[in-house]
């Protein structure tokens, strides 16, 4: 530190110069009439910032593997302002996988209730569409109407068993901004 302070390059002019420049800039802008608005920062990326909560409703773990892959440096979900959250209370979007088993019905409903509005549900994988190959099992039930209504309103489903990460990524990036919900 000391050697830097006593360095010859730090002169009085060197210290004053930025301040003088700043002063000049201020004077300059004050002296002029604003003829045009300063350009807005690009907010589109910010408005897309989405917090996601994953909800497993009885999947085989295949969709979870691919969702996990979204966090790797190749797909790198966070560069789009999208990230997975640990709590449904912080989440805008619920990502649902699996055919909706009876044993998970209550837990799924509670998770959904914990989310604040506006909220959306994206369904991932063939099971989450209509039960897939588990459709006719006694252990798979229909989703509660309030959850189904949000799924219908969101209307985003990623097909595949499991869908590839880029498919999931495309769907998530396409989610319209939350403010318009």
């Amino acid at each position, binding site marked *: 530190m000391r050697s830097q302070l006593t360095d010859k390059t730090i002169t009085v002019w060197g210290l004053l110069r930025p301040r003088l420049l700043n002063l000049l800039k201020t004077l300059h802008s004050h002296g002029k009439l604003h003829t045009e608005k300063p350009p807005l920062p690009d907010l589109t990326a910010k408005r897309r910032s989405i917090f996601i909560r*994953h*909800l*497993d*409703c*009885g*999947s*085989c*773990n*295949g*969709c*979870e*593997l*691919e*969702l*996990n*892959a979204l*966090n*790797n*440096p*190749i*797909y790198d979900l966070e560069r789009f302002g999208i990230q*997975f959250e*640990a*709590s*449904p209370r912080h989440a805008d979007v619920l990502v649902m996988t*699996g*055919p909706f*088993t*009876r*044993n*998970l*019905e209550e*837990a*799924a409903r509670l*998770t959904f209730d914990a989310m604040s509005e506006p909220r959306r549900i994206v369904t991932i994988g063939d099971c989450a569409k209509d039960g897939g*190959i*588990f459709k*006719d*099992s*006694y*252990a*798979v039930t229909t989703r509660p109407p309030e959850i189904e209504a949000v799924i219908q309103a969101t209307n985003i489903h990623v097909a595949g*068993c*499991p869908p*590839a990460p880029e498919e999931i990524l495309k769907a998530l990036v396409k989610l319209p901004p939350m403010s318009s919900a």
Partner: protein
Amino acid sequence: MPDIYDGVRQSCQQSWLELPRRAPNEVHFVISDSEDLDRLCAWAKQQNYYLCTMVTNDERALEDHVFKLYYVFSAPQGDLVILEHLLNDPKHLEQYPSIREVFPSVEGLELEAYDMIGLSPLDYPIPHGFVLHEPYPPDLYPLRPRRSPKVLIEERIEKHIKPPSPPLPQLPDGMFFLPVGPIHAGIIEAGHFRFHVAGEVIENLDIRLGYKHRGIEKLFQAQYTVEKGWELAEKVSGDSSFAHAMAYCQAAEALAGIESLPQSALYWRGLFLELERIYNHINDVGALVHDMTFDLVASEIAVLREKMMRLNQHLTGHRLLRGVNRPGGIVLKRVPDWEALQTEVVDITGEFLRLGELIMKMPACRDRAFTTGVMTGQQVKKFGATGLAARAACGASDILGTALADELRQHDFRLKHPQGVYKLHTKLCDEIRATIVTENTKPSASFRRVQVFQKDLQGDVFARLALRVAEVETSSRIIQRLASRMKKFAASELALIEPDIFTQALRKTPNFEFGIGYVEGWRGDIFYWLMKGPGNTIFRCKVRDPSLFNWPALRLATIRKPKLETNDKTQSQDYWENILADFPLINKSFNLSYAGHDL
């Protein structure tokens, strides 16, 4: 070494019957007396037999008009021992003699059987609610055929009023519960953990699973034929898709009596099985390192895993290796460029091994992983843990140097019951044996990159981590060997035998025969027991994922327990302890399947 015939002669005082062998290594006995069965099981335990599965089957509509019980054991000599027991005691038609005292690992199978088919042990009561939770009436028993129509089952479920949850048990002063789940704070599956903690130390742990119960065994019966069942089998557990489908197909082939598949099919199966092992081990090591907050390496490993998934996609058209297995062989759209495949696998695993060595030497990793989540050798034996978790305890200080340690080190169905390509080439088995370096290891194995010594495998998180890294190297070497031989197959040579041949063979098989299929997946041995019904339907398909045996092992590895099991209460004891922050590491080091457990 005494074999099973000695055991049967010693233990059975009443009549017993040996049925003809379906496969050279399958021995099938009908033991009619329950006390004989008890004695025989006790004898088997002494001989380090491993319980593969227990199948409960409703055969009341068949010739014997009773429920039947099949225990399948794996003998150290390489035989699979099937003990069939008829529940024909008129007083206890729906109860069976339990072997839980001798083989505690049967607990999960018993609880599952009580929910699914309504059979319970004679000696003690067990609760409902293992896989069928409160929304289901306790006497639903979906696997009893007469209640098969879905409408009937659903009607009963709708009528059922959910009982209130039972009150929490009382804890001593200073201890409290920490409930976690069933919905977890990450991208993982659903299951409930209830920690009993005193300060930070985990004193006890209740695990409740079954949330993901999808009624797979019922679906097999209701909707699938033997030819088509592979579709459902590969959706039992996503990360073991190939191994499950392969076990199913082998069961179907055993059922149809197909003894020889085209050689290329065996090679393909071996290749894909090892690919699945590699991508999962890479994934789990990455997850472990991520939990040790070594994120730079975790990211690099995640890239390697993605490369593996793309390789899978390139080879089979599916990232999880789905849709290639059929009863009778393998269906593939293209034959890869073998040179490219070999280089790709060498590149990926080579890079991974470099990172693996780095992790294993890193002080922060060693500090967190050593003596965390310890499972002693005796506990592994007692609770029947299997697969990687069992092998990782083969150097535990309480068993090192005994026959049990050797038994655990080789607790791998590729070695114990080699089939397919592992039977064709003993070199592959040598590779597997060389994974763990012992005192007697031949010097030929010394040019392996990763050296994991048996004495270091103490059943803790580090042992499981190190073993995963070593197994990736083994699998990579196996793939090299397989690929260099597969070059010789002509590109036109489709590995599938004509589906007609399989269907015809199946048609000749009498109804209500059964077949057994088993595969050493990356978690451990996957077991399928498949019985054919009329018209190629599935009468019963019992699926047993290794997770079923390893969940109790995970609990045991987590809770506070004495280092040495003694009955001397006066002596002060040392304890293995884990704190809450250790649990993510312990959990990831096992990385068990919830879906495979719940079915």
